[in-house]
Structure formats: C-alpha cells, structure tokens
C-alpha cells in the first residue's frame, strides 16, 4: 500500500494524511522514521531513547500536519529540528552518567557475540562522536551517516553552505584526533 505512494512528494503525502488518508500517513512515516531514529541514536547512543524521540517527533508532526503549509519548511527539516530539540532536552535531563553505558545493552542488533573487538570499536567511535560540539556532530551525522549533501545539511541547520563545510571539516579533524589512540584497533575492526 505504502509502496504505491513512494513517488509522491512529502507535501502531498501530508495533505492526504491530513484529510484522513491512513496509507499516506504510513508512507510518510515509513519514509522518515528510520532517519529520525538513527539521528537520535547517533546523538544519544541509546536505542530506547532514540525510539522515544522518534515517536514523539512523529506524534508532533501528526498534529502539525493539519496546518502544514506546503511551501514552508521541508518535512525532513521540520522532523530533524524537532528531534534535535528533543535530543537536547534528553541530554539536559540526563543524570550525569555516560550514555555509552547503555550502548551494549540497547543497540546491539547486528553484531555477533564473539565480535568483541568490533563492539569496542563502536563504543570508541560513538564516544568520540558524542563528545563533538553539537553542530559538528549534527553535520557529520547528516552528511556522513545519513547521506545528505552539505547544502542540505546547511539548510537543516539554518547555516550557510560554507559554514556547514567548515563544521564538517572540523568534525572530521576532531574525530581523527579522538580516535588516534585506538587507530590500529579501529582500522582493523572497520576493514
């Protein structure tokens, strides 16, 4: 059912969903849900929290859809902004403990138990990613992990393309520095 709507724009899906078309809403949710979950997961390192944030984001969008203006912000930009704000709320509300403590229990979905080395690599990389300043972190997630162009990331962050490029370069440099102590293990685990 939702596959039939794959060529329809987000705005059109929103319009249909707002008029009661359940399949349009399902298609819209399927189109963006995984991105929102992964975005929150990269930033928090906790699968349960990431899914909570994705659910809350889509819930808010369901309400917003009734008054959605097609020529305004893009759907994905709206979703990322709301999810980003919810991530910040979670970070502020968290008790002062490392979010990485939860990674092993909540996000191991595709790693075999005997691949301990790879698991450690994930923890090291995630720790470095979460330690980045927020904007560097977001640009790196959007561009590297989620496949958006620098221009698209700039639009989502409401910064110039040049500024986004600069943020991305600094993010990669910071990641290199942070990962350097584990370089041999990481390269071995990632290759």
């Amino acid at each position: 059912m939702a596959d039939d709507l794959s060529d329809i724009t987000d705005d059109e899906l929103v319009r249909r969903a707002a008029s009661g078309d359940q399949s349009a809403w399902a298609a819209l949710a399927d189109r963006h849900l995984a991105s929102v979950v992964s975005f929150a997961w990269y930033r928090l390192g906790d699968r349960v929290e990431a899914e909570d944030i994705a659910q809350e984001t889509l819930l808010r969008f369901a309400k917003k859809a009734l008054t959605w203006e097609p020529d305004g912000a893009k759907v994905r930009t709206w979703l990322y902004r709301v999810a980003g704000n919810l991530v910040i709320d979670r970070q502020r509300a968290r008790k002062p403990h490392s979010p990485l403590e939860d990674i092993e229990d909540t996000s191991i979905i595709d790693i075999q138990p005997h691949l301990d080395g790879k698991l450690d690599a994930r923890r090291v990389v995630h720790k470095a990613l979460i330690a980045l300043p927020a904007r560097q972190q977001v640009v790196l997630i959007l561009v590297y992990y989620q496949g958006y162009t620098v221009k698209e990331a700039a639009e989502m962050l409401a910064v110039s393309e040049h500024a986004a490029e600069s943020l991305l370069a600094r993010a990669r440099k910071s990641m290199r520095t942070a990962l350097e102590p584990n370089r041999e293990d990481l390269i071995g685990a990632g290759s």
Partner: protein
Amino acid sequence: MTMQNHQMNDDQLDAALDALQPPVPSDTLVRRVHVMAPPPQKVFMTPRRSAAAALIMALGAATMLHMANSNSIAPTATPASPAPIAAVADPAGEIPVSDLALGDEATISREPFSMAGMPLE
C-alpha cells in the same frame, strides 16, 4: 619499528566511522507511529463558537419573525385598485372598457378591446 604517529587518512577515518551502524526502528515503534495518523479534519465547537452560532441563529429568527409580522399588517395607503365593473353605472354596457377607470392614465391601454379580449365595435 615504524612510526605510527601520523593521523588517520580519510579512508581510515571512514572505515572507523563505519563501525557505527544505527538500529532499525522496531516493529513496535513502526506500529505505534502508523496509528498516529492525523485525525480527519472536522468542525469542532468551542464554547465561544457555540455562543456565536446561537446568537446568529437567534438574530436570524428574530429577523424572520419581524418580517412575517410586517407582512400581516395592512398598509395604511392601499394601492389604487380598479373600480369594480359592476359599480359603474353602465347597465347597458355601452361605455367601452378602455374608458372605464381601470387605472391611472399611463397604464390604461388605449386599444379598443373589451375585458374579455374581444375587439369592440
């Protein structure tokens, strides 16, 4: 012993970053999100809207009642009505209808037809 103090190159950094693979949304989350579809748009009545609607209906009803009462009252100046034919003292019917006072001068037809539409001699 080789020196290992140079930084990771882009490929090595990408390989390290690739160690992170995000979770896919759980089936439970997908199901929950699917049922969040916006409710169909419908007109809902707030107290203020209800009060406004009642006021408009009351005004409409009062206006219609006023108009109905106005129509039932006989006008003080009745429009000129043609005098009944029987009241004209013309028992023999010799006076042409066109000459009878059936209305004001402007509206009286000067055609020599009787009231029945028959041409008069």
